[in-house]
């Protein structure tokens, strides 16, 4: 069973995705901040990380993605954010500053999210 770490400070989003993933047979770990996310990552060795951008700091997601890729280059990261809607900012993945495997805007349809996750897990 693949283990997915959700790092996001939006509790409603986290509980909805948690429900979706569990009901589809995934094991789920949850963190609400970058620091907590790094601790759980070290402890639980997830197979994939769902990562928000703006948490305690506006760039927490980018910083965490950079740290994760240094630690475990092959762990897929799916960045999920509504930063574009909230701030008008336009980001995308790039190998240096946003080193994630895929970048999606929230809200995201459950089937698309599952499809992306399965794709990144190589299923």
């Amino acid at each position: 069973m693949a283990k997915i770490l959700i790092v996001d400070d939006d509790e409603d989003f986290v509980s909805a995705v948690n429900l979706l993933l569990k009901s589809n047979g995934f094991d789920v770990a949850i963190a609400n901040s970058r620091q907590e996310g790094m601790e759980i990552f070290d402890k639980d060795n997830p197979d994939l990380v769902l990562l928000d951008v703006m948490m305690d700091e506006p760039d927490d997601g980018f910083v965490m993605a950079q740290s994760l890729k240094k630690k475990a280059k092959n762990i897929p990261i799916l960045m999920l954010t509504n930063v574009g809607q909230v701030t008008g900012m336009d980001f995308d993945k790039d190998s240096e500053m946003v080193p994630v495997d895929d970048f999606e805007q929230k809200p995201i349809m459950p089937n698309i999210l599952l499809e992306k996750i399965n794709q990144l897990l190589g299923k």
Partner: protein
Amino acid sequence: MQIIDRQKVNEQIRDLKKKYGDDRSALMPILQDLQEIYEYLPDVVMQETAHSLGIHPVEVEGVASFYSFLRTKEKQGKYVIRLCRTISCDLAGKSNVARQLENEMGIKFGETTKDGKFTLEYTNCLGMCDRGPALMINDRLFAKVDPEKASQIIADCRRDFLKSDFPKVVPSDVKKAGPILDHDLKPAEAIKKALSMSRSEIINTIRESGLKGRGGAGFPTAVKWQLAGAAKGKNKYVVCNADEGEPGTFKDRMLLYEHTDFLLDGMTIGAYAIGASKGFIYLRGEYLYMKKYLEEALENRRSEHLLGKNILGKDGFNFDIRIRMGAGAYVCGEETALIESLEGYRGEPRNRPPFPVDTGFQGNPTIVNNVETFIDSALIIVKGSEWFNIHGTEKSKGMKIFSISGDCERPGIYEFPFGIKVSELLKEVGGEDTKAVQIGGASGHCISQKDFNRTIAFEDIGSGGSIIVFGPDTDMLQVARNFLEFFVEESCGQCTPCRDGNPKLLGGIEMLENGRCSFTYLNELKKLCETIQNASKCGLGQSSPNAFLSIVDNFKPEILGRVPEAD
């Protein structure tokens, strides 16, 4: 009336477009140069500029009329005398100099002599607060002016033999240097180190140092750089905010002169980190005399491959810096207003979001940082984050450079760690009998003796570096009046609470002075302050009532002593 040859104007504009570019962002420097030629901006000059840039003439007039250093209505005198009216110069005897100047020339402030020789104006803060009263004649500065010296200066102008107090540079007045001002780093050392690091490593080093913007707002520098670095966009920009306009601040004047290389190193490192290829130094109009010096510094760096293509042999790292002059608008110190000004518009702050890190200069990702922030960044890259963050407090890391002026024995530039107590600072500067301290300039807070144990830090009393000391005889209502006159003059006028609220507060000060302000009205004014703070969209408006509120709250006996019995 001067006859202006339209064809000649067009030729001049064509030449200026070659120098500054042919898009709207060239408007300000073109107008500034045309004003140099015609001594003001006649209608025909503005019309031809508009046609040449493909914009409506009204747009050009709108821009020209916004900036106090651009003149649209009448020809200015051969010598434009601008006397600083900031509180520090006021305390040092500005009024006597003003009277002397008016008497010498037979005109009032805001007027030009009939022979076209002199224009007399007030200006806000020349950045010479430690050497007041100060005045500027065209691009030359004069410090510690008294009536006798003013008379001599006018006589020199009449003979067309004006000598500057500072033929080359304004000497620094550093009274206390610490790790930022006194180090053994060589120019370009920081760039060499940065180019051996990855972009994210640079930003992480800045993040670990805890560096927050030194302009006053205290936004984490690394977050700004990270967001701009991550933002989509082929053209990214680095802007140095050298529009040091906060009354009582003059540390950037010294940094621009004496730490130029480290500033340019910091900008170059910022460019590398976010992936920018172009940069600007937005230099305040009052520092025009520095422009030539900075241009020479940039030219030297180009010849040393520290600017230009493939910097220091790093393939694909291209970056260059241009200087753009402000034109006497304090609000342009606000980063979005600064960007508007760079783009050739009136310096009116933008709504946020979007933020400059994503939608800055011409819609591109842009970082705007203060002079001191860039210098700190360069030093941190070489010396490491711990070297920086061992100083300061938990939430305000590092050393801070302060401009200290007013009623103290040793005014000047001081480097202290964040978290220093106001009482400790006063001891250092020789202000033991101080009555009040204005921390953070006109937009900051005025504290009384009961608060001298508080600290200067973002979590307590924040400051971009301006500290003005008031002695026991200072009339605090006069201080409040000076600051409010400043905001009435400098409000860009976009937000009604700021545009109309500050004149109301100033009116309240006048009523207080005349003993005609009731308690009820004073309370109404305090409510108005809240409205101005809540309903203005930029830092200028939001902070404009701070001085009024803190003076009314902290000096109640003095203020209320002039209020008639409660109604």
